[in-house]
């Protein structure tokens, strides 16, 4: 088995798909440089740079998908979707419904998200819950290189709009560009298993909407995505020494949720801790409690999420994003 870095894996799966399907094209700001390895293999016709006009080029991606291409539109950061949310809220997500099911927009929006490297509150948001609120959008959040590549492949085969969120703390290229700038004087708490890991020789799609149990545990179930999964795994390991058995379910897909998997694991332990780097209110953490309650499963529940605008100062940032410390506290609270 090969081993790859997180973004390398995603790019590799993308390259495999591009070789198979000439309708896949790529564009976004600085893409010729950022995806230079794809540029020199697939040519400037399929790998394009754009002006800083997110509304125009994301909207164009949606329409190009309707007209037969399979565009991968890259945005610099999920935070910047604020300037072009209309393309997702009122167009990509609604074409299928509006057309009476006759027309779809199979566009993949690839966009870095997440914090942990001191870039401040306009550049470290997660927003997957915000996006998942909109019916008609598929929202993917891989936490390992293997899932990154596999979900990218699945996204490229999906017949509708997909938001593919690439956590910057896992991404060797984004973290270097935005965080370290190749300095050796800074350290970030990068989850090793998320940043690098085994990947298949030939990419196969990882099914959309299927969660994956990263760790079994009988006392408490943690449900999470992205970097939160790794924080949860660290916490679970630490709690083992206290005699608490913690399971960790990696959702991988935020929308559509794998309701069955969530219910199954929570029914088992009767205790649900949601670890969500996205904002706490009106998002994923609430939705998961509803999914469980709707099924008539009663459970103890707590959540460790981002509650406020993410502070710039590293220390404040660490206190704000879900951490092993806060997760352990959350689990212990549920065990009382």
């Amino acid at each position, binding site marked *: 088995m090969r081993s790859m870095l997180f973004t390398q894996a995603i790019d590799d799966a993308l390259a495999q798909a591009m070789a198979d399907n000439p309708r896949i094209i790529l564009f976004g700001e600085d893409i010729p440089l950022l995806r230079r390895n794809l540029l020199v293999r697939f040519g400037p016709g399929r790998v394009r740079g754009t002006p800083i*006009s997110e509304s*125009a080029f994301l909207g164009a991606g949606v329409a*190009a998908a309707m007209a037969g*291409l399979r565009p991968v539109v890259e945005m610099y950061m999920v935070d910047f979707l604020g300037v072009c949310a209309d*393309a997702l809220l009122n167009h990509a997500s609604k074409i299928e419904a509006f057309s009476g099911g*006759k027309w779809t927009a199979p566009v993949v929006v690839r966009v870095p998200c997440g914090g942990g490297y001191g870039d401040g509150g306009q550049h470290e948001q997660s927003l997957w819950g915000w996006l998942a609120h909109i019916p008609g959008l598929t929202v993917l959040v891989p936490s390992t290189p293997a899932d990154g590549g596999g979900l990218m492949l699945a996204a490229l085969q999906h017949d509708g709009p997909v938001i593919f969120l690439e956590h910057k703390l896992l991404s060797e290229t984004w973290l270097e560009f935005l965080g370290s700038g190749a300095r050796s004087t800074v350290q970030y708490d990068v989850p090793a298993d998320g940043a690098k890991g085994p990947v298949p020789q030939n990419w196969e799609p990882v099914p959309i909407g299927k969660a994956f149990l990263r760790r079994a545990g009988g006392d408490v179930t943690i449900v999470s995505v992205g970097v939160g999964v790794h924080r949860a795994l660290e916490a679970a390991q630490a709690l083992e020494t206290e005699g608490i058995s913690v399971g960790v379910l990696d959702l991988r897909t935020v929308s559509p949720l794998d309701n069955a998997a969530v219910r199954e694991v929570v029914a088992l332990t009767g205790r649900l801790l949601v670890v969500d780097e996205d904002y706490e209110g009106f998002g994923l953490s609430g939705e998961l409690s509803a999914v469980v309650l709707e099924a008539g499963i009663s459970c103890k529940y707590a959540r460790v999420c981002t509650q406020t605008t993410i502070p710039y100062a590293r220390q404040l940032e660490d206190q704000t994003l879900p951490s092993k410390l806060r997760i352990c506290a959350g689990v212990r609270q549920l065990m009382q």
Partner: protein
Amino acid sequence: MPPDLWTLYALMLKSRLFEEAVAKLWHDGLISGEMHLGTGEEAIIAGVVANLREGDAMALDHRGTAALLMRGVDPVLVARELLGYPDGLCGGMGGHMHLFSKEYLAASSGIVGAEGPAAAGFALAAQYLRPGSVAIAFFGDGAMNQGMLMESMNLASVWNLPVFFVCKDDGWAITTKSVEVTGGGLNERAQGLGVATVEVDGRDVSAVWEAAHIAIERARSGQGPTFLHAHCVHFEGHLLGFPMVRIADHPLREMPGIAIPLTLSILRPGGAPLRDRLAGLRTVVASVLSTMRDPRRDSANDPVARVRATLESVPVRLHELEDQSQKEIDHVFASALMEVPS
């Protein structure tokens, strides 16, 4: 080849008769929500659409019906969609601001300015999959102030996309006069975004056709986007039941409901000094008056009547065409109003 006026007239007439029938259904309460007609802009739509061929795409605004009909979409399907029937063009899911035809690569949006990105995307796909094809964006003068439309013009320019940006300028965005909220000039603006421009009288279908022909051929041959600035009027005002038009049509009936609260408000203690209040009143009165005196109320601006006048020299053919059109539309609505399948 010069435009065949008979063909263009037939297109315009079809749309006009269809929309007049729609207006009736709307007044009868069979169509819900907002209903924006394209009556008054038919010359622009016909002059452009008559230049299209298979593989070309259209991004439409909130007045998309005319373009779809002229493009060849089944009018019964459109009518049944407006009526909200499950076998309408979009299964009753879209309605009049969200009419979609995958077959004709035509997509509508009720979001002002969204036609820009959509046309750019259609044109991008054309570059790869259907070289020589073009994409049209139809939008109004008000949309020119929406950032994403300006962004799209720039994108079309730098990517050399085969887009034809068609601005149907009626001078209004609902109750706002566009000159009062639009700096510079629309043509300068498009040029500042790298797009070639042309301006025509949008009431003159031949002029539109000529301009469109050149621009579309330019786009087809890889010479990039063009912006068309075409002037027109909208007879019904912004939408059916438009308050300003109601006032103009029935001042005695409509004025009291407006004038009484206005008078009470202007007299209430607390607020601006009299001078400012009067300035406010002047603004309101000017709006109402400008609707009354508006060219959109003047049938001399009717593009359908204008082309008809030039065809009157062949009265037999004209009446035959008109009878035929009317029959077809009657037939369309007879079918459209047939019982809903269940």
